[in-house]
């Protein structure tokens, strides 16, 4: 790829994000979900956890701490759900962006341009990053107002940092589903299955120490496990930057693994779609 194409592709990536934002802006009611879901979903689980533990019984909390390394159940669950929302946005994001283009009929028009295929795959999902930040802010306010938990500033900054480090690996996973859209059209069930599986493996609402050994080993190969674990360490266990280096290194390594896989699968399925004519059908 020469430098001219790269500069053009980067501008196109920004333009795709702007195009997506302009469409979202026409439906302000969609933004309501940004406030509603990051509060309601985890709050239900926190209240359930409090009820099951006898309203904060020390023995129950200690038993939880033995498995999770912390007694901060509220933040533990909220961080887990933040990850869940991020997982949903990025697993669905690229695939949904292509699927919407396919159904609307604009996918061929986009693929007729000289722009890199990564632009229509990732560009429209850039708005998801805004929603992730918004979710983090809403979550911080919610745990403070509803449960009296104040997030430590350093922990928040480190959580944002690990989020940024985790973006390539998460997007690479999303790209795998995006590639599936090109060839197979509807891939909703596959995303549902994967999201459900990852929610279970990565310990969204519970410590992964609860899982059998083989499942814990599998969890270590999944980027969300490292992200959610590092965020909990930063926010709940006062971990410093040095403590998060292993998680960051794992995420960068996994980004290469999933990224390489995504490139191979995307090229293969795009070629298949160009042979079968699937680009123009849905």
């Amino acid at each position: 790829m020469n430098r001219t194409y790269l500069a053009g592709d980067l501008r196109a990536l920004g333009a795709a994000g702007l195009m997506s934002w302009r469409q979202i802006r026409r439906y302000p009611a969609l933004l309501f979900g940004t406030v509603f879901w990051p509060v309601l979903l985890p709050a239900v689980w926190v209240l359930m956890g409090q009820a099951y533990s006898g309203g904060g019984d020390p023995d129950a909390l200690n038993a939880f701490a033995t498995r999770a390394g912390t007694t901060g159940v509220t933040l533990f669950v909220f961080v887990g759900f933040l990850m869940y929302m991020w997982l949903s946005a990025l697993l669905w994001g690229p695939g949904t962006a292509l699927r919407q283009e396919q159904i609307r009929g604009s996918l061929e028009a986009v693929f007729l341009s000289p722009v890199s295929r990564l632009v229509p795959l990732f560009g429209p999902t850039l708005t998801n990053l805004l929603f992730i930040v918004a979710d983090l802010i809403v979550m911080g306010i919610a745990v403070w107002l509803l449960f009296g938990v104040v997030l430590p500033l350093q922990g928040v900054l480190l959580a944002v940092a690990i989020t940024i480090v985790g973006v390539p690996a998460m997007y690479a996973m999303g790209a795998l589903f995006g590639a599936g859209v090109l060839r197979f059209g509807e891939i909703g069930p596959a995303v549902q299955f994967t999201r459900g599986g990852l929610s279970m493996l990565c310990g969204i609402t519970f410590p992964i120490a609860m899982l059998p050994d083989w499942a814990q080993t599998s969890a270590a190969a999944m980027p969300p496990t490292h992200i959610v674990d590092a965020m909990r360490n930063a926010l709940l266990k006062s971990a410093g930057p040095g403590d998060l280096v292993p998680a960051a290194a794992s995420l960068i390594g996994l980004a290469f693994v999933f990224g390489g896989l995504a490139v191979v699968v995307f090229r293969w399925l795009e070629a298949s779609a160009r042979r079968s004519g699937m680009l123009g059908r849905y």
Partner: protein
Amino acid sequence: MTAAPAVEVAGLTKVFEKGRRTIWQRLRREPDKREKFVAVNAIDLRVERGEIFGVLGPNGAGKTTTLRMLATLLEPTSGDVRVLGLDVKTHPREIRANLGAMLSGERSLYWKLTARENLEYFAALYHVPPKETKPRIDAALVAVKLADRADDYVERYSTGMRQRLALARALLPDPPLVILDEPTVGLDPQAARDLRDRVRELKRQGRTVLLTTHYMEEADQLCDRIAIIDHGEIVALDTPAALKRRIRAEEVVTLEIGMAGEDAPMLARLANTAVIARSERHNGTLAVTAHCASARDFVPAAFDAARSEGATIQHVEVVPVSLEDVFISLTGRALRE
């Protein structure tokens, strides 16, 4: 050195497989038993720079499939395709950068954005330099007569306006070659005329236009040369005038003859003074399409023939030879069948 032709195609073939081959069948390496459908069958084509070239044929003839292969959206099964001198297999990105295409018309736009927002997005996708983006968008909007509605949402446009906006988008990269798939389909006569005027303007600007249509009048009026395609094969390729000369007639006479007896004797009599292009029997009426040098000679002869066979001519229609008649003479059926 002369510039390469805008499009050069040799032995282009596209075969689709019907149905899916399951993963189980692939793993077991079972032979591929799927039914094959030949959409485009070994066509050769050369479009010169600066001409308006039409691909005329009925629905399902292979026009759109051909265009999609030229536009790098569909991979040919076999054959060589060069667009603007570049091979589609090895230089797809360079071809796309120099190609303006309108393939799926109004559906290819973002209806929840304004026309200007649509063009801003596509200008970025076509790598139009930021400094040139606004002037190019303004010029494209003026060219398709949408400048005064540029900031309206596309969902509020008529079908004709959306088609024109899709054409404006195709012009954004300032392409030497523009390909248009059924550009006037679904438009009212005024909107279609308007769009055809825009296409003529493209030719005046020195661009090459390759379009598909199943409207013979459109092909006749617009195109410098036409390829008539049927069942994935080019059955004729020439200028509209030369194609019409092929059937060696000046006029086409359609007769409806009320008769009870056999068709053959009547048709044999008519064939003495004209070429019978088509005949069809509906109960007691025989519909005949005849190509002749002069209707003044043929029609009286047809009345004489009918009288001799005890038949009655119920309706006579005389029209000049059209591309539809060329198509009928080549394929034995009408374009819209």
